[in-house]
């Protein structure tokens, strides 16, 4: 078994209302010095067997098909998180 991490972020040119709200809350709580917050999504896909190039390719395909919407989001990382025997 292995876990593959897929990270998705709103495109830079898309305003991120959630990130903005989190940033405002940080300032209210006294966590100063944070210029900007952007909020994305992290997916952990646990797969059976070895992570081959073919498996990674399928995950990349899933990342742009279902896990993200290319109109508003970018897939910023697809990486093997850990491999357990």
């Amino acid at each position, binding site marked *: 078994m292995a876990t593959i991490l897929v990270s998705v972020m709103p495109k830079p*040119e898309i*305003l991120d*209302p959630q990130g903005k*709200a989190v940033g405002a809350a940080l300032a209210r709580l006294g966590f100063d010095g944070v210029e900007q917050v952007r909020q994305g999504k992290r997916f952990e896909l646990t797969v059976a067997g070895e992570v081959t190039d073919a498996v990674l390719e399928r995950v990349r395909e899933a990342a742009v098909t*279902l*896990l993200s*919407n290319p*109109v*508003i989001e970018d897939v910023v990382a697809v990486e093997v998180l850990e491999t357990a025997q």
Partner: protein
Amino acid sequence: MTARIGVVTFPGTLDDRDALRAVRIAGGEPVSLWHGSASLENVDAVVLPGGFSYGDYLRAGAIARFSPIMESIVDAANGGMPVLGICNGFQVLTEVHLLPGSMIKNEHLHFVCRDQVLRVENAETDWTSEYRQGEEITVPLKNQDGQYVADERTLDELEAEGRVAFRYVGFNPNGSRRDIAGITNARGNVVGLMPHPEHAVEPGFGPDSVESGRNGTDGLAFFTSAIKGLLATA
């Protein structure tokens, strides 16, 4: 004879009953469609209603767009069948790429629920032909993820081709680019909008009108437009 108009129910759909009722009040034959079946039951047009399909998990409309019925709807839409997406239905239409752009969380982060004035910017689509160009109508609006976004090139294209079908008037309730409330495809058979015409079809149960409270029926012409168009080509 009359037009058969299907209304799709996904898990988490809320406004399917209202959409079916709107079809009936407009004089059409309402047909319930189920997301898990690929069959369109020989309908002449389809409405994707509002709600929170699959709880809006992942993104609004993102999971619903992979349901078996959507494949049939995409084929039918490409063949010219009138398809209307309302609110969550509009989100499904963008996720399935029948319409460009996408919806993100409202700019102010609040759920918004209000009677909203819209201007009909394109009265030549299958769902707007019974309106006058530039007519202002009032229908309910209720959403959390209603901020329409697209890149500048797409927005310019939509404007140039007259594909902005509806614009918010007086107040932009969710931060949508260029006050866009709804759009159409180039052919005019696929239309999506965030506000809810199906909630403004029967006196006593609609938004407030100039004349009296709750008696607004400005949304009815969506459905009569489609029915009239279908009967004319039948």
